[in-house]
């Protein structure tokens, strides 16, 4: 008696509904990704524009560790 191999496997085709579902999922994911990327880019842009102001602010702010000096 010898060990048996698993048999070759035909790959099932996808029904139209299945293909449509996958396409819908893919589209939704891509759209969401694009949205997120756009948001990130916006955030970055706003951070860059805010950055110099932040520095000037921090200079004006009271540093509690140095307040006594």
């Amino acid at each position, binding site marked *: *008696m010898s060990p048996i191999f698993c048999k070759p*496997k*035909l*790959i099932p*085709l996808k029904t139209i509904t299945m293909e449509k579902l996958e396409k819908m*999922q893919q589209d939704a994911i891509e759209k*969401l990704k694009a949205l997120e990327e756009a948001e990130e880019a916006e955030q970055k842009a706003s951070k860059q524009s805010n950055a110099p102001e932040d520095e000037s602010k921090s200079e004006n702010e009271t540093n509690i560790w140095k307040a006594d000096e």
Partner: protein
Amino acid sequence: MESSKKFDVLFRALKLYNQNEIDKCEEECTKILQKNPLDQAAWTLKLSCLTESLYIDELDNNDVGIAETFLEQNVIAPNARPGTSFNRPLTSARGANPLLRPTTNAGRPLSGVVRPMTTARPGTMDQAVRTSRTAKTARAVTSSSARFVRLGTASMASNPDGPFVNLARLNIEKYAKDAQVNRQLFEYVFYHEGDVKTAHQIAAIATKEAEFNDWYWKNQLGKLGMFQDAEKQFLSSLKTMKMVETYAYLAKIYNRLDQPLVAIKYYEEGLESFKNDITILTGLARVNEQLGKIDESIELYKEILAVQANNVEAIACIATNYFYSDLPEIALRYYRRIMQMGVNNAELFLNVGLCCFFCQQFDLAIACIERAHATATEDIQADVWYNTGHVALSIGDVKMADRCFQLALTADQDHGESLCNLGILRLREGKIDQAKSFFHNAKGKAPHLFEPYFNLAILANQAGQYSEALINVNKSLEIFPEHVHSQTLKRHITILYTML
């Protein structure tokens, strides 16, 4: 375009909708609405456009998530007799021999097509989480049904500024009563927003407004997923008007409740009124296939082909059946027919390649398989390599086969069949421990296969570990009761036991 500019804007939008130019139509509608936000015609047309992009045939959409499977509250008979439940298909049916025809993760004979429909064999939840979706008809770990896709993401993705219709502020009572608007609104809410509660509200008001005489609203109420209520709605809908889809929906409910025999009854009732209807015949063929009645299913698919000669699902299922009935040359003709109809994907090329290979047309086979590799998407990568491994094995190129199986594992680490075959290759090299580990791995990853159990039993038997051999051979017989070699091995071991 020049002449179309003379058209009335709404007429142009309608024309675009008819020509299936949904995006352009939506733009036109938006323009009209910007001019006059109260234009109801444009508003409903835009609703239809938005629905169209996410429309899925609910009849086909039958995906059940993991929660529903293991925490199922709707099943009527949990311990059904064989042949009366999807969970206990006839394993010994003719044509469903796992020695010839591989099974899916769910323990059913491999089908010709994948459908968004899943009913798993009862297993542990742990098993379901572990087994991946490689064998196609097995469930995904998370639900990937259309409803799930729609939930949340759909409206957000299509409209970053917020949904087109603010359902919370909409006067549902008013619009649901308006026969000019309510269908489009319902479909928008159901398909696009995935808001079943509001959809139910609209349908309930609309059916009342139609004095319970409109089959459409009864069917919509039935579609919302409340099984007990749905049957009443559908039966009442049949009294108003006999429609094909109503019979199909009735059967769908019973499929979902795991009562396939009742589903078959409704399909047959439907066939009495609508002879040779493709939707009903397809449903009937699928139920029979899932129950393990392959021969009946194939007969039905042949009937479908007699009516509609270009039905891909029917051709694919018949082809698969011929292939596993040891007639690859006939299977090849069917797959070639699908190819002639313009389908052109990796799955089809690989199947054609395999058919060619097994009817000795080697030159074509290699070309087809190469083509399949070139176009394969991620989800079938593992299966493509696995089958290529088989071809290599048949040529005698063991080294290449070994590499192919390993590549299949790289693509999908849970590919049980590849693990099992790699085990045998290691065994041939004399590395018994490695082989054993592969078989153990395979039976963990793919509990629906009997091969790893049988191979382990042989190994244990040779090593004189009879109790382990007996456990494994019993497991193998549990999955495939008619396997002659397992039976022989079991008899041999039992004799040894009784001698003591």
